[in-house]
């Protein structure tokens, strides 16, 4: 597990990934690696706990978009919770929230995804 991925767990057949640090190219690739691995094992629902990620750049966002595209192929979904305001704003500007969902808490995310 890379330094950026703090933990992964499953709940209600959803893979929950907890991140820590800069969601840039490196961070994005760490997320995509786990997602693609789980997808090949049949998982198609992912939640990212971004409590530890206060900074995100457009490359990190573009990798998330790549993941969304892949998930659409398997009728899957991705969502996020515990977002810092600046991260939430960046997701909005980059159009990410049109194709994935931002939740306030883990409980809300697990039940709402």
């Amino acid at each position, binding site marked *: 597990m890379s330094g950026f991925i703090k933990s992964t767990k499953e709940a209600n057949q959803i893979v929950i990934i907890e991140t820590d*640090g*800069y969601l*840039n*190219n*490196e961070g994005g690739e760490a997320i995509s690696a786990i997602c693609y691995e789980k997808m090949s094992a049949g998982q198609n629902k992912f939640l990212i706990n971004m409590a530890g990620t*206060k*900074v*995100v*750049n*457009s*490359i990190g*966002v*573009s*990798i998330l*978009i790549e993941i*969304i*595209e892949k998930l*659409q*192929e398997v*009728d899957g979904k991705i969502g996020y919770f515990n977002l810092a305001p*600046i991260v939430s*704003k*960046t997701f909005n*500007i*980059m*159009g990410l929230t049109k*194709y994935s969902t931002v939740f306030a808490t883990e409980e809300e995310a697990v039940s709402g995804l």
Partner: protein
Amino acid sequence: MMTKQFNINELQLKYLELETLLDITNELSSFDNVSVLLQEILIKSCAVLNASSGMILMQNENSDLFQIEAEFNIDVEALKGVVFNKKRGFFNEIYQQRKALHVQTVNDPFLTKTKCTYALIAPLLDKKELAGVIVLFDKESRFGISPFDESDTNMLSAIATQSGVAYNNIKLIENIKEAKTFNDNVMQSIVTGVFTTNLMGEINHVNRAAASIINLEREEVIGNHYEYVFESNEIINELISKCEIALETISESQIQIICNGKSTSVNISVSPLLNDQNEPIGSVVAMEDLSNLDKLKSTFKKYVSKQIVDQLLENDDMLNLGGQEQEATILFSDIRGFTSMSETMAPNEVVETLNEYFNLMIEIIFKYNGTLDKIIGDALMVIYGAPNSTDKDTENAVLTAIEMQEKLIEFNQQRIIYSKLPVTIGIGINRGKVISGNIGSRQQMNFTVIGDSVNLASRLCSVAKADEIIVSDAVWKQIKTNKVFKNRKLHPVKVKGKAKPIEIKEILYQRPAFNYDLAYTMIEEFLMNRLPKEYTYHTIHHIRDVVEQAERIAKKEKINKEDIADLKLAAWLHDVGYIWEPNRHEARGSEYATTVLNALDFPAQKINRITGMIMATKIPQSPKNILEQIICDADLDYLGREGYEEISLLLLQELRLKKEINETDWLKIQDQFLTKHSYFTKTSITTRNKLKSEVLDNIKSKIKNK
């Protein structure tokens, strides 16, 4: 399955850049801490420009060196030990050009230490000076890293410009805060009390010392008008008010202020507070607390006179260790027979006696500017003429000795009345060369004098008997022109350490005659303290009444003043025996009077007269002369005057302390007593018999009606 294709377009990125710049602009003004500001700028810059990492270096205020103040996603360990000198590497170029530049890290002595490849560096300017740099590393893409482009440069330059402004503002605020904290710390740490008022007269600053002096919490003072805070200290209000009008410094020394119940002696100075246009904006009040100085003086004054304390405080050199030879007069005094006297006393009584005695003597010593050198057991050593000499030193020493002996007579009168042993002293005085100085260590030094002359003064004190003042020839030669002093030549004495006998003289002084008024006062005080508190009739009020009536009757009977004085003395003493033996109080009182009057040098031939008067008051009264008749009539004067009933009830109350007396018995006792009683003097017969008969008739009537 159909899939949607998403791409991040240029418009979205530009939108993000603009939003980020706007955020930075909006947020910059909300920071009040440089470190937080720099970290925020760096993170946002990295995010918006897709930099993989970054850092901000700021110049050290005291050197040409820069240090990392914010870092993001960077291996700081790799840069550990790197000295960022503004004269080298990219710094040199950015210092010269004051604009953003692109660097390949491999070409820079500093950045090559990072594992990055490309760097975009923008200056953070403080006005036009280079205050720091923001460095972003390696622009990220989905295909790896790349150099930053022109658009990135413009963006970072814009962020850096905004950041420079915010940085300057924060630094300015921090400097103001630092200056304020510095000023506050200085103000709080100084021992002078300082407070300031604004144009409205409200106190807007008060330091700890001022709060302590005025005995109020700072919170209770701040915001209140000075006239309210100092409402009971008109002088402070007047000073501030004067300063506000005159716009000049006004001072007042050693004034006593009372704040919140605490009284403090202070020096006050009030100055106008001016702004940079020299316009008044309030007043600043400085108060110097003099209590510590007062304490210091008070401590010193236990050992030396006020004059010497003031000289010492004004002249530090006087405290130097070392010595000098000079002429001085030395007085020794010693209590005669103190050892045997103390053997008959309880330890606390010995200490109490010594303290009372020393307090009295030291007050006299300081009155004549003597320096108390030592208290050795019950002896005193006093110096005149050192450290500072005057032409009155020897005269002052002899005057001290005379007053000590005179005061001791009064002191002993009180002791005698209280049945305590009198204290008597001998005094020896010599004048001659001494070595004077502060002798001892830095931790403990004593001003003293040493030498043969000192030893001789001590020997003369040993020669002096009780009540005597013995002086050497050297002393007498200095004071003989002053006709106040009388002497009696004594045989030369042989003293230890001197081969030849020493010529000595006794200084004569008038031992005061028996002082009636002082004796009355002291006996009254003694009675007040010692008469049994449970007595309701034989109280100080009864005794005062007897004294008053005795004097009144004596004057009517044309008794001379001297006899009246004796009569009053007997009146004061007539019930003193109640203190020890109520049943034979007249006899016990007479014994006490004999002892005390003898000790007080009361003429021996008159002591029997006093005791005769005391004994005459014994019931049934048996006066043998007019004075005894008067005291007897005075003792029972109340039998024939208004208020008999109230006084007789006080007597009944006292009698009931010994046995139960019912109302009927009491009427019978009064009937018997009044029937048997007769006044002796014409005055009392004339003025008291009528009312006494009415009282008796009334009592008889009551008995009849029972």
